[in-house]
């Protein structure tokens, strides 16, 4: 392992908690890549990220930046966008950029930040009066103010509308194109799929699967998902090739033999009028690995 950021055997337990929030987690993030930490709420994503950021001290384990244990100087090389951040009241975006810029030995110019984060008309506005998407852009600019090597984005698009979310993805891609390493946490699987070179699925404080999204899916699945409304589904007497799952009002048939499965359904008397066929996603993978929904 020779990543720009590495964690070995991280443990963290909060006082009064019955179980470890993070137990024995190790990972390595390649330079210039986007690394995604996925998992449901309470899986230990944020705790893990905050330890990697140096904000939270692990109970055990070590974190290395370019091979050396992280210390105070690490803060100068990282940029962080927290899940929820309040900013000082009554200061404009421009003033906040200048304030945060002054806290670092070197900084990106205002013009550069405006270009990178599309801040044009936002500079002289009060961050509290911005829309969700605008606010995230301003917070991203604050995370980039010191031209960091590693950028942490903790659920940056939670609560944004689809268009704002896609705009944010474009910003994240352009940051990566500048050679930055991104560590992203999210519970949106399409976001992870769109941005990440590598993902780690976290559950109960452990990584349960890790790799490039496509590689992971190929490794755990072959085939597709056939979805039918529950009312249209009739179980064929001879069975179907693959696995049948009931998810709410939808029946899912996980199979690698599409034609055989469709034959069997037709034979059994299921109506195929509302049938959908889709590829397996990270969400399916999470469900298959843990038996739990990602967003529960």
């Amino acid at each position, binding site marked *: 392992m020779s990543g720009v950021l590495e964690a070995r055997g991280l443990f963290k337990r909060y006082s009064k908690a019955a179980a470890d929030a993070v137990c024995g987690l190790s990972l390595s993030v390649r330079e210039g890549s986007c690394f995604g930490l996925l998992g449901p709420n309470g899986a230990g994503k944020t705790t893990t990220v905050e330890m990697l950021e140096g904000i939270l001290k692990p109970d055990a384990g070590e974190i290395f930046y370019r091979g050396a244990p992280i210390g105070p100087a690490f803060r100068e090389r990282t940029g962080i966008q*927290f899940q*929820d951040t*309040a*900013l*000082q009241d*009554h200061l404009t975006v421009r*003033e*906040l950029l200048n304030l945060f810029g*002054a806290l670092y030995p070197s900084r990106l110019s205002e013009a550069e930040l405006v270009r990178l984060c599309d801040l044009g008309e936002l500079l002289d506005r009060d961050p509290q009066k911005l829309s969700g998407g605008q606010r995230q852009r301003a917070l991203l600019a604050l995370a980039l103010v010191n031209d960091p090597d590693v950028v942490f984005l903790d659920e940056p698009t939670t609560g944004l509308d689809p268009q704002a979310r896609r705009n944010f993805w474009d910003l994240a891609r352009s940051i990566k194109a500048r050679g930055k390493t991104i560590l992203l946490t999210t519970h949106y699987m399409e976001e992870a799929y769109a941005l990440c070179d590598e993902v780690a699925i976290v559950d109960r404080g452990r990584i349960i699967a890790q790799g490039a999204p496509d590689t992971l899916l190929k490794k755990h699945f072959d085939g597709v998902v056939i979805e039918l409304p529950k009312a249209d589904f009739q179980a064929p007497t001879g069975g179907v090739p693959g696995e049948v799952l009931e998810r709410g009002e939808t029946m899912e048939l996980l199979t690698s033999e599409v034609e055989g499965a469709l034959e069997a359904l037709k034979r059994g008397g299921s109506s195929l009028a509302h049938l959908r066929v889709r590829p397996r996603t990270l969400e399916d993978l999470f469900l298959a690995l843990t038996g739990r929904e990602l967003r529960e």
Partner: protein
Amino acid sequence: MMRRFWAILIGRNKEFLRDRGAMGWNLLFPFFVVFGMAFAFSDKRQDVFKVGVMGEVSALPVGFGATKHLKFVPFDDAAAAQGKLRHHQLDILVRPGKPLMYWVNENSPKGYLVEKILLGADAGGLSPVRKTVEGRPIRYVDWLVSGLLSMNMMFSALFGVGYNLVRYRKNGVLKRLKATPLRAVEFLTAQVVSRLILIMGVFAVVYHGSDFFLHFQRLGSLLDLYLIFALGSACLISLGLLVAARVTSEELAGGVLNMLSWPMMFLSGVWFSLEGAPKALRLFADMMPLTHLIDAARAVMTEGATLSHVAPHLYVLAGMTALFLAVGAWTFRWD
């Protein structure tokens, strides 16, 4: 180091100056208090007669000593006692013995009355010797203004810094700053200096603004007064920081700040003098920074004291400031 400090300091000052509501309140409230008190007490001076006694109170003539509505205050220092008499803070000064000596202020009507009482009781036989002093009276408002300004400073320092810091911890502003190279000591110093500038600015406006209408009698130097108030407010701000060093709940912070400010408001001599107060109360009062601030400021205002006269109070304030800041910075948490 200095750059980070300045960035935080300037940011904090802008925040405050743009918060119109808070700014207006910080300026108006002390004016209301000073003028309200000046009006409320404009005619009523204390309605007991104050008798300074050089020596043992028990050695006074028995009849005079038993007179109702006289308050006897023992003094060791003749000069200090005569100073008080000069400014009408004592109505008469008596030295028991034979001959019995007493001093009155020729400009004081109350002094005239107490003198009649003294001579009319049983002092006549002690061949009393009369001496006089002269001087303008120090009104209650001249005496009170140091306490009022100090009290206002206390609220601004404790709540302005303490409460604000806890709010910033709760909503994550501090956590965001923790993610930068900013150090706790730089951040905290900027908070202290920012609030100090604000408090002294408000002090200057309120003091000189009220002085314009009320014509305070200030016997000591204005510079000394400013220095004392600056040190006192630094001490109170540090106390606010100490309270807010780790607390994450605004309710708890508010409770602790109230628990600190209310006893100080009533027991540190804002409203009445601690002279002649029970020893236990005086001891308790001496533990409060506000007591030392008020005592020192009041001595400059009404007794013409210099910094060296009030040095013990200043040492206590400086010591408390250092202690509060050190413990506050040591125990400080960003989240």
